[in-house]
């Protein structure tokens, strides 16, 4: 029997320790997921908290079906979309500042890789980027991604294939640009 089933039952009956267990169980995963969408840590934490708050607001109506984790991802995903709508109005430099300060402490190669991947991810269409985050970073199964995004499994596979193609193309382009610039500098 799924342990979430029992945990949800206990939470519905108002057992307070069950709330602690549940939040501790999923907080990190949801925070990491939000972190991929929002470079600002505080925003990511706010969205994570809001994800749990939304989940618990509707808990009494929630009927255990499938994985609870997927449901949390769906809520977090929707909140991140809302965040993107807002962030578009804020100048890009401002939102990137905190992540750049944070990355200043890391080794140079890591920083370059991080910036390149971040740049490449930003070039991807939203729906394809979402699949990349869920598959590579959250390490979810394709069926789970289909469940979270409410799309068919073949479409998830197609998007993943497209993501690989586009990312490879973008990274190759970036690599060529970097090597060209280095040659020019020399």
């Amino acid at each position, binding site marked *: *029997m799924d342990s979430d*089933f029992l945990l*949800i*039952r206990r*939470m*519905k*009956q*108002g057992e*307070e320790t069950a*709330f*602690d267990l549940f*939040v*501790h169980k999923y*907080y*990190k995963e949801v*925070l*990491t997921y939000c*972190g*991929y969408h929002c470079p600002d*840590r505080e925003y*990511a*934490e706010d969205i*994570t*908290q809001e994800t*749990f*708050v939304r*989940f*618990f*607001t*509707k*808990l*009494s109506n929630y*009927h*255990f079906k499938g994985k609870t984790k997927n449901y949390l991802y769906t809520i977090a995903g929707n909140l991140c979309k809302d965040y993107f709508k807002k962030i578009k109005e804020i100048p890009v430099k401002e939102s990137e500042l905190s992540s750049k300060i944070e*990355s200043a402490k*890391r080794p140079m190669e*890591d920083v370059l*890789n*991080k910036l*390149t*991947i*971040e740049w490449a991810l930003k070039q991807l269409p939203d729906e394809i980027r979402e699949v*990349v985050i869920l598959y*590579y*970073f959250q390490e979810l199964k394709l069926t789970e991604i289909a469940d979270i995004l409410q799309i068919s499994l073949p479409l998830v596979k197609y998007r993943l294939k497209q993501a*690989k193609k586009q*990312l*490879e193309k973008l*990274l190759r382009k970036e690599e060529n640009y970097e090597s060209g610039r280095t040659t020019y500098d020399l």
Partner: protein
Amino acid sequence: MNLEEQLMTYKKSVQKKPQEEKMQETIRASKEVFFASEQEKMLSYHEFLWSQFKLVQKRWWILQFLLLSMLGAALVSAYEESYIQRGMGIMAAIFVILIIPELWKNRSCCCMEIEESSYYSLRQIYSARMVLFGIVDVLLLTAFCGTMTIGLNIEFTRLLVQFLLPMLVTACICFGTLCSKHIMDETVAMILCILWCGIWLVITLDEKIYTMITLPIWLICIGLSFGFLCIAICRILNNCSDYWEVGFDEIRIE
């Protein structure tokens, strides 16, 4: 580095370690919002009982009423027939058997797990159902016993022995089987009740045995069966959450 490796390196570089303080804040906010939303929805005891009343099939109460009416009519027509009075035990057993389908429906429909995951626990649902049956049956039996003792001048002790005792024993059998981890089928409960009816008939219709048992013995039997009934009901309320249709604690309902 290939794409996968680059993505994995990126993944490691952006891993966020959750802060305990923020987690506690989330837990507090979650609890607050959950309890606030629950307070708006909470049903009072009366409302909960009423909602359960609407779910219980009323035909069993109608059948119980008809059964008592038939018994009353039989007693009126055969007022002096002591054997018919002693046969009331059969009717008492049938009266209780009529409760079985309603109390067993969670187990026979294999919906214990679904109900357990709902907001109200099975314990609350079973309690409400038993309270409802208790209220209706007490009303029906009070009316029946009142009419019989006042209208037909049948001694209350005779009603107690010939009607309420077999009824209590039948109820013990039903509730005992319902809270049993091994006997799952309602048919088994019915068969046991019918067997009990046979034993009861042998006791009451055999003049030799019947006269041997004095009133204090009957009263002790009533006390014992009432005590057992209370224990069985408590066991049902305590254990009803442990019966699952999927494997759990090695208990399974087929």
